[in-house]
């Protein structure tokens, strides 16, 4: 059986396409994955990697195209189907049960029972051996709750391997790991490969790709760009070139000279993730923070806003760092949070009720709420921001992503902020609303107030920001001034971890 498996491709994808209304997320993609290799999948956010993974794991149904595992047609309808078809997945959220032991986790769902009672079988021996083969350091009888995140990941990998998966997909598995844990995970992945398992490895960190991968597939804008052995890739520059192409166009218009008039000064900001972050923001300036997911952008925003614990010197208009969002708002800072639906909006409330929330006392006299004023304020902001709705009484959950985001922005504008912190301001927002939001941001800055945009979309920061701070692994690695001459490959090199090595 091993011989036939070697002859066949572990996975072959042919003309795979996935359409969403108005968008083709994956566009006639075809490539093969050789058995017993580590096959890397790279591309920018939105390139279509996660859509492919979702189709492989049965979470999404392809619009057209076929997939085959070891030469056999493969059409999963659920993750259970995918597992039966030999594809296991290591998701970013772990699915282990903390209260059980490692062994119980490994045998979960495969227990042998008689008359409803569990009986001993060779299953336990088998999974124990699998675990020992990939990571001898984990005691099978330990409680999973006592393990680190990295060890839990390994338990999950072992479960996939012992349930007979020939292919294991790992989506950004190192996002939450320390450097030493990453090394150990790489050891596990190599041992998996040596024991006839194919690994599909997805990561933004290009160093990891070069260290670990045998072959690489590059995706861009839903299209397949190339699949080739990493040995034939000429270093990071070629990989970045393939990922970006020449497709990034940006319409940055220089906004005239901005005086050196700092409103926000951050010196030596440290937190559980941030390392010595320092920068200044001038009045009237739009600042960008660009980096991959997990680089620390959100943490910078939340630290300035007083939402998270952090150490370091933050001065806004001469005042020290806010210790709570309430203090931040009072001092003139407003945040558009990363997760619009869970952190920014009250989806169960109407537009009218949402807009005044950040400055609710402005609509009150002696603690009594002025209902009629609220309505006129809501109407004013709906028209000012162009929120597409026929009524201010509409529930926020019924609005489209772009209009929801505009409601969140309206909340911040109503708070009379002098500094807007925008965390992923256009994620999940359609193109039209996107450019309207950009115009609102520019208008805001043109009145002499400051904006910080925290984004993992390069096009966004290049189109909008006057200065850009590049973040990697909790640090600000570089500062660049935006303009026609920005060196995009250099930016990508820095945010993928190439800044320190000097490659």
């Amino acid at each position, binding site marked *: 059986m091993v011989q036939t498996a070697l002859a066949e491709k572990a996975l072959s994808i042919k003309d795979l396409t996935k359409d969403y209304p108005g968008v083709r997320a994956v566009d006639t993609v075809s490539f093969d994955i050789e058995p017993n290799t580590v096959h890397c999948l790279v591309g920018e956010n939105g390139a279509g990697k996660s859509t492919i993974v979702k189709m492989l794991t049965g979470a999404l149904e392809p619009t057209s195209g076929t997939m085959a595992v070891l030469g056999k047609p493969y059409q999963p309808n659920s993750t259970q189907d995918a597992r039966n078809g030999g594809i296991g997945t290591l998701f970013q959220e772990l699915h282990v049960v903390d209260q059980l032991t490692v062994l119980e986790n490994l045998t979960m769902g495969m227990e042998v029972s008689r008359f409803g009672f569990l009986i001993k079988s060779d299953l336990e021996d088998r999974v124990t051996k699998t675990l020992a083969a990939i990571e001898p350091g984990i005691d099978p009888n330990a409680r999973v709750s006592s393990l680190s995140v990295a060890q839990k990941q390994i338990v999950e990998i072992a479960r996939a391997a012992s349930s007979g998966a020939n292919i294991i997909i790992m989506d950004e598995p190192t996002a939450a790991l320390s450097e030493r844990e990453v090394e150990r995970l790489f050891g596990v992945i190599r041992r998996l490969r040596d024991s006839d398992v194919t690994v599909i490895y997805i990561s933004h960190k290009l160093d990891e790709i070069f260290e670990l991968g045998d072959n690489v597939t590059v995706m861009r804008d839903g299209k397949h760009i190339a699949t080739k052995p990493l040995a034939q890739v000429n270093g990071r520059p070629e990989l970045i070139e393939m990922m970006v192409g020449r497709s990034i166009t940006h319409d940055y218009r220089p906004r005239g000279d901005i005086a050196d008039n700092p409103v926000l000064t951050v010196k030596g900001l440290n937190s559980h993730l941030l390392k010595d972050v320092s920068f200044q923001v001038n009045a009237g300036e739009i600042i960008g923070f660009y980096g991959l997911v997990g680089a620390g952008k959100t943490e910078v925003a939340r630290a300035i806003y007083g939402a998270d614990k952090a150490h370091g010197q933050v001065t806004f208009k001469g005042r020290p760092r806010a210790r709570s969002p309430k203090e931040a708002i009072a001092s003139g800072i407003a945040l558009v949070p990363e997760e619009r639906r869970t952190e920014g909006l*009250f989806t169960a409330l109407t537009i009218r009720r949402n807009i005044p*929330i950040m400055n609710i006392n402005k609509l009150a006299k002696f603690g009594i709420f002025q209902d009629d004023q609220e309505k006129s304020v809501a109407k004013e902001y709906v028209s000012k921001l162009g929120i597409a709705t026929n009524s201010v009484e509409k529930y926020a959950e019924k609005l489209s992503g772009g209009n929801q985001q505009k409601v969140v922005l309206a909340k911040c504008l109503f708070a009379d902020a002098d500094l807007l912190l925008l965390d992923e301001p256009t994620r999940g927002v359609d193109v039209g609303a996107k450019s309207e939001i950009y115009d609102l941001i520019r208008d805001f800055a043109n009145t002499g107030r400051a904006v910080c945009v925290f984004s993992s979309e390069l096009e966004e920061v290049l189109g909008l920001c006057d200065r850009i701070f590049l973040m990697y692994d909790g640090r600000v690695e570089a500062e660049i001034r935006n303009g026609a001459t920005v060196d995009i490959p250099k930016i990508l090199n820095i945010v993928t971890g190439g800044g320190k090595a000097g490659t």
Partner: protein
Amino acid sequence: MTDQAIAGRRLQARDNKLSDEMFITALVAGAAIVLFLLASMLVPNFFQFQNVVNLVTNNWSVIALGVGVTFLLVSGNFDLSVGGIVALSGVMAVWFAQASDGTNPLSTGWGLPAWLAMMGALLCAVMIGALNALFVVVLRVPSIIVTLGTMMLARGIAQVVTQGSQRNTNLPSDFGALGNMTMFGTSIKLPVVLMAALILIAVFVERKTVFGRLTYLIGANPVASRLSGVDNARHVVNLYLFSSLVAGGVGILLASEFKSGFSNRGTLMEFDALVISLLGGVAIAGGFGSVIGMFFGAIVLATVTSAATGLVLSPDWQFTLKAIAVFIAIMAQTWALARRHSS
């Protein structure tokens, strides 16, 4: 759903004339009326104005407790300690007021004047509320566990103080004044009037003030409310203190009415207060509900139980009937809201 379909629905949508809360409140009020008429057809002599008055006056204590419980539920927190606090504050008020020269331990107290004894008892009640706030807000223990604990603690202290029974002797003559004072030349007693005043104030706070608004916001989305500058912690602390203050007041008024401090008084009242809130349309997950709804929920429950007594069902059936009423009411609400949102 396609973009076109969404756009189509957007065009069709109109202003909702009633908010969801008003809709549910109207639904519960309607149910209360229908149930009352139904009971009037089945039970002889049920259809009397005095009977309507009785439904309210006999339940003033639970309705008053329901106000604090409703505010806390709307903010996303439970308060199961109110029944225990009713027992504690009543027992403490009596103990503080009993003369210090009794013939046995149960008739001997601190000899304080009645008003001072009641203030002291109120303080004990608020301390239980502070304990709730400490564990829920500062130590972040789930409120259902914390208040279950403080419920037992409060009743436990009451039992120790009364040696498991009650204190009812050696009280100053004015101790019974508050609980038995009748108002406006009718048979309506002061506690009922206080309850009505509490409801009116609560409705005003809930509908018209920033404080009321913030309560809804915290319950609807605590993460977003914190990031929008709401001091969730302080607000929930205030709500627990308020709820315990109301429960303390109820306990003292009951002690005054019966001139006794009884350690089993208020048993299961916390559950009745929770049930009438849920019957009244308060969402158990927070962010939704109203005090008026809770009031009509209490009327529904009272109608069901008193009609059952009138129908010569043995009192043993009360719990079963309450259970049926709760299930029907909650299913009807879920169904009505879902229909409303899909139309």
